[in-house]
Each structure stands twice: as C-alpha cells, then as structure tokens.
C-alpha cells in the first residue's frame, strides 16, 4: 500500500512538474513598424518549433519604448527578456554591462553573413551584443516622370549642387509639387539624423578629437545654410514639422519630386496599395560634395537580451530564429519577397527572387556600404555613429540642437543664431558631463 501511495504521489508530482518545466514565457518589447508586426504575426511558427516557450509582446511607441526599457534595464527590473533597440543604444548599453552578449546563436546562424557595417554597429569589444532585425541607410528617392519632363537625369552619385539645382527646377508650387522634401521636425532621431548625415558630406563633425563641439565651423554653416535656403525655395510649406511619416505621405501623394530619407521607405513608395506614384520612383545614393562622404546614415533595429532577464537561453533561441536566414525565407513564403526585413544579411542581396521584386535593393546595399559608423566623417572624430555620437548625453544634446535647427527652418531664428545657440548648448552639456573643461 505504501508503495502504491508513493508511486501515486511521485506520478502526480511529475505531472505537476512537467507543465512548470515546460512553460518559459518570453516578454518581448518592440516598436510598431511593419516588419515587427509581421514578426508578431509569425510567432506561432516559433512556438510550434519550441512548444516549451510562449511569447508575450509589448508594442510601444518608439520614445515610450526607449524610456520604458531604459528604466527597466537601469533598475534591473527584469520585466523584459528580449528588447528591440537601435544601433545608438547597443554600444552604450553594452559598455554599461546592461546587455547579455549573444554567444549561442547556433551553428547554422551564419554570423559571417551579416552585413559587415551593420555587424560592426551592433558589436562592442569584438562581441555581438544584439542581432540586427532590419537595417537601413538613407538615399534619394525621386520621381522619374518629373525628372524626364524637366529634361533632367539623376546621376547615380548626385552632388548637393545637382540636387539643389534640380529641386529648384522641379518646384511647381501652383501644381502643389515641391522640388524636395526633407525632415524638419526637431529631434535627435528626426531632423538631426538627416542633418548630421548631411553635415558629414560637407566635411563637418559633431565634435573634434578632444570632444570640442564644432558648430562654429564653416562646414556646419555651409550645411545649415544650404538646407534652410533649399527648403525655403523648393520645400513644402510647414516643413519644420515634417518627419519621416509626413514626408512619406507627401511623397506618396505625388507632392515631392525628391525625398532623401530611410532606405526602408523604398518599399513603401513603390507599393501601389499605398502610393500614387509607385511606378514612377527612381533611387540614387545620398548626395555628396566630393569630399568622400555621402549624406547617408546607418541604422538598424536589433534584438537584444537585457542583463536582468532570467530566461536568456530561450531569449537567445528566439533572437536566433527571428534574425536567421530561415526567418527571411519564412516571411517570403507567407507574404512575398518584397516584405522580408531588409538590410541585415549579404545573402539577401544575392538572392535573385528578392532582387526581382526589390528594384531598390542594389542602392540600399550600396548606401549601407557607404556609411561607416567607425569612421563617419571626413575629419577624425572620437565617437562612433554616423548620424549620432554614441554617448549617453547625445539624446538630450541632439534634441536641443534639433530644436534650434528646426527654428531656423521655420524662420523664427537665423542660421547664425541657431548655430551659435547649438554651440553654446552643446558646450554646456559636454562640460557638465565632464568631456571638456
């Protein structure tokens, strides 16, 4: 009887223990971008292969997500197991010990297939701290029909002189068509992403080798003067409040002859469901001034594991799945090659099926290759990052400077006053943070 009781107890313990062992719930924080929404939709495929793991999604607006995740990670709250973070955060957080290095992505993950520039951007001290989910640079998107009508031909590597000249010629305000649409909304990730990249092509830089801010240099003045004058003459009205989405809507509605922005926009503007100009779009590299740097940035949304997570093994499994070559194939089989996450793997740009449906693929790759986060500017700099400096203080400084430049575009301050205010604000913050005396 005793044995029977023991056996029953043992069996019931086992039965109770199995579900407890089997259940690992991953909480994944992400942003509401098309590729991430698709990933959420395909979660079932992951859990089918890993029945012991369940996945909970937390989707938030980018700035809310950044604040939410930073609070959790700084307090080691342990609320998230996988985070979606940008290339800006990766080196800063890795240095602070907030991220778990990704060392067990599996034998068939093929790290060597990751685009070298993107891999650099998510590595710190030679170790991979995040896996790129999709990557982007920026490029010129232009209306082939309007160019043809005006007798203009877009070079593959346009100069700023050409872009300025063409924008003026293509502007027809009575017809509601503007020569160029550029970001003007203040923010380190909004107008400053574009303007920092543009400044790089003009030979400007955020800081010199000793961390001294450089807004008082002729290069920055040339950048901002060109930008403000160009937008005044050939930009849409109210441009100082336009960000990525506003310009996307303008371009899709046929109001912009040129738009310089993220390469991921290429798939939006060529999608006939959303765009009125889908079959009339051409692509070119971001403009240059002949100094050896183009005005294009480098960014990737990545998946990483916070140091506070207790489920690193399952989290790494998920990351390996979502950023693998097989995931790309899965998306292609369910939603077509045009919808696979771009900009992370070399193999995608060698895939004939993808190249057939993505006329922008070649230029996306060329743009990513042209941006170097470790050597972003013509003159040497002490920071990493093309359109940002990967230091914790940058978010605050970048947004302050962005507000000045947005005001210059709106006409409420002059270019000189905006540059001088940017210089003093940056100097103050850098002194406070101890970079300079």
């Amino acid at each position, binding site marked *: 009887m005793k044995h029977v009781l023991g056996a029953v107890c043992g069996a019931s313990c086992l039965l109770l223990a199995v579900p407890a062992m089997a259940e690992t719930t991953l909480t994944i924080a992400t942003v509401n*971008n098309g590729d991430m929404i698709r990933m959420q939709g395909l979660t079932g495929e992951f859990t089918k292969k890993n029945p012991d793991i369940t996945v909970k999604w937390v989707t938030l607006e980018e700035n809310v997500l950044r604040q939410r995740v930073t609070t959790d990670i*700084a307090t080691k709250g342990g609320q998230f197991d996988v985070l979606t973070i940008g290339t800006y955060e990766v080196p800063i957080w890795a240095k602070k010990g907030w991220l778990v290095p990704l060392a067990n992505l599996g034998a068939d993950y093929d790290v060597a297939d990751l685009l070298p520039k993107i891999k650099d951007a998510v590595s710190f001290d030679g170790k991979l701290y995040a896996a790129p989910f999709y990557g982007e640079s920026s490029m010129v998107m232009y209306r082939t029909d309007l160019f043809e009508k005006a007798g203009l031909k877009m070079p593959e590597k346009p100069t700023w002189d050409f872009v300025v000249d063409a924008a003026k010629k293509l502007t027809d305000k009575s017809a509601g068509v503007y020569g160029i649409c550029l970001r003007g909304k203040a923010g380190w990730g909004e107008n400053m992403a574009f303007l920092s990249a543009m400044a790089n092509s003009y030979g400007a830089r955020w800081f010199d080798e000793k961390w001294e801010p450089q807004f008082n240099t002729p290069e920055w003045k040339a950048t901002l003067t060109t930008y403000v004058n160009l937008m005044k003459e050939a930009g849409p009205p109210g441009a100082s409040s336009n960000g990525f989405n506003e310009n996307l809507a303008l371009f899709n*509605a046929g109001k912009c002859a040129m738009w310089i922005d993220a390469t991921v926009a290429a798939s939006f503007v060529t999608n006939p469901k959303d765009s009125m100009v889908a079959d009339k779009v051409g692509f070119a590299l971001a403009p240059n001034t002949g100094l050896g740097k183009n005005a294009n940035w480098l960014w990737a949304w990545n998946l990483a594991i916070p140091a506070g997570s207790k489920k690193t093994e399952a989290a790494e499994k998920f990351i390996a799945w979502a950023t693998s070559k097989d995931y790309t194939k899965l998306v292609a089989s369910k939603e077509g090659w045009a919808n696979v996450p771009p900009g992370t793997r070399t193999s995608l740009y060698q895939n004939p099926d993808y190249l057939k449906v993505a006329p922008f693929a070649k230029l996306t790759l060329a743009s990513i290759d042209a941006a170097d986060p470790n050597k972003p500017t013509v003159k040497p700099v002490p920071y990493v990052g093309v359109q940002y400096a990967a230091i914790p203080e940058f978010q605050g400084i970048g947004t302050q400077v962005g507000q000045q430049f947005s005001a210059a575009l709106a006409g409420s301050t002059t270019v000189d006053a905006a540059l001088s205010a940017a210089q003093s604000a940056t100097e103050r913050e850098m002194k406070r943070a101890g970079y300079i005396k």
Partner: protein
Amino acid sequence: MARMATTRRVAISTAAAWLFGFLIFFPILWMGLASFKTELEAFAVPPSFLFFHWTMENYATVQERSDYLHHAMNSIIIAGGSTLIALLIAIPAAWSMAFSPTKRTKDVLLWMLSTKMMPPVGVLVPIYLIYKSFGLLDSRIGLVFILCLGNLPIVIWMLFTYFKEIPRDILEAARMDGATIGRELIYVLTPMAIPGLASTLLLNLILAWNEAFWTLNLSTSSAAPLTTFIASYSSPEGLFWAKLSAASTLAIAPILVLGWFSQKQLVRGLTFGAVK
C-alpha cells in the same frame, strides 16, 4: 419688441453654445472620422471631411492584432478600483476636515496638493525599484494603488469643497437625535452630497482611465490597460494615423458612453453649491 429681442438673444447664445460645443468636440469627431479612412486619406492634404472612401479595415486590423477586451478589462479594474478605494479613504478625510477643522487643516490640504506639484517622472525610478522589490510590476494591484494615491489629493479637495457647502446644523440635528458618526456619514451626509460624490467619482474615473504615465511605465502585458493599447499603434516608420484613430476610438468609447449617460449628475455636481 422686448420679447423679439429676447428671442434673438436666446437664438444667438444657443448658436454660440452649439458652435463652442462643436469646437470642443471637433478633435474627437476628427479622430472618429480618421478611423474610417485609409492610411493615405488620413494623411491627405487638404483633408477630406466626409467624402472619402469609408472603410472598416482599421477596426478589423486592430481587432486582429490586439486583444481589446483584455486591455479594456484591465482599464475597468484599474480605473474603477482606484476610484472606489480613493473615495473610501477620501470621504472620512474630507468629512473630518470640513466639519472638525483644526488650525492646521488648511496646511494639511495644501500639503496634500503639493504632492501633485512634482512631475511624476521625478519619482519614476524610486517607485519602480519599490514595485520591483514588492513584485508589483505589471500587476493590477500595483496600478490600482499608484493611481489611487495619485488622485487622492484631488478627490479629497473636491469632496472637502462639497462637504463645506452642507449646513452643519443638519449634522448637529442628527447628532442630537443620537446618530453615531458612522450613521451620520452614511445616512445624513452621503445622501446630501450625492451630486458631489457622483461628479468626484466620474471625474476621478476619467482621470484614472486616461492616466498614461504610470500605466505605461509600470505595466508590460498582463496588467496593460487601454493606454498601452493605444501606444502600440504609433509608428516611427510607416503611416499609422487611421489605425491609431481606430484604436483610440475603441479606447475612449466606454468612458464616453458612461460620461454621456451621467452628464446630468456631472453638471449638477460641478455646479453644486454655486448658488446658495
């Protein structure tokens, strides 16, 4: 002649009131309309007011992508729970301050209000650490607690002003008849203050329903209310206005309906004691 002038004045003031009401309501109307547009139409310049291709696609997408009922249930529990607990604490507090004031009562009231003078982000990290230690992160109880504490000063202030309007003599008469404090509170004070209580309850419910700092920062998925449901539809790269409008319309619908049905009490409560 005089009657004509009066009629005209009434007509003008009615028209002005309607116009003003329409202006206030316009953002909500615009959001409702945008929720039936396609993404491209929602962004169109110049915008179309009524003549666009009406579609239910956004609502279908929102239903498919998020669990609305889960978020709505969390909102009801969090907003309702925090409001009820706040009222339970505030009624005796306001009663004692209104009817047995000491010379420090005014200071206490001001001190309570001073807790609302600091932006909540200033205490985010300490609160987060406390919540982490007590295992309250992403829990409904945690959110009920913080929203209750956050709104308590306003609730006490509102009730205090309503109670002050009630003649002391009535309470004294009840006491003369041998009513205990509890009976006095329940049978004499509360029925007389019902309009005030109702409007406090409703206002606090709306405040708690719309609270978007603590609810976003202290919840992840299990306790996430409708504010996180809305926040998940804003996108840095991609058009989202129409879907966001659909999500927002769904999120405000319950509280809008509640407000609609109880507007009589709300108006009575807000003007309570205005004319003696």
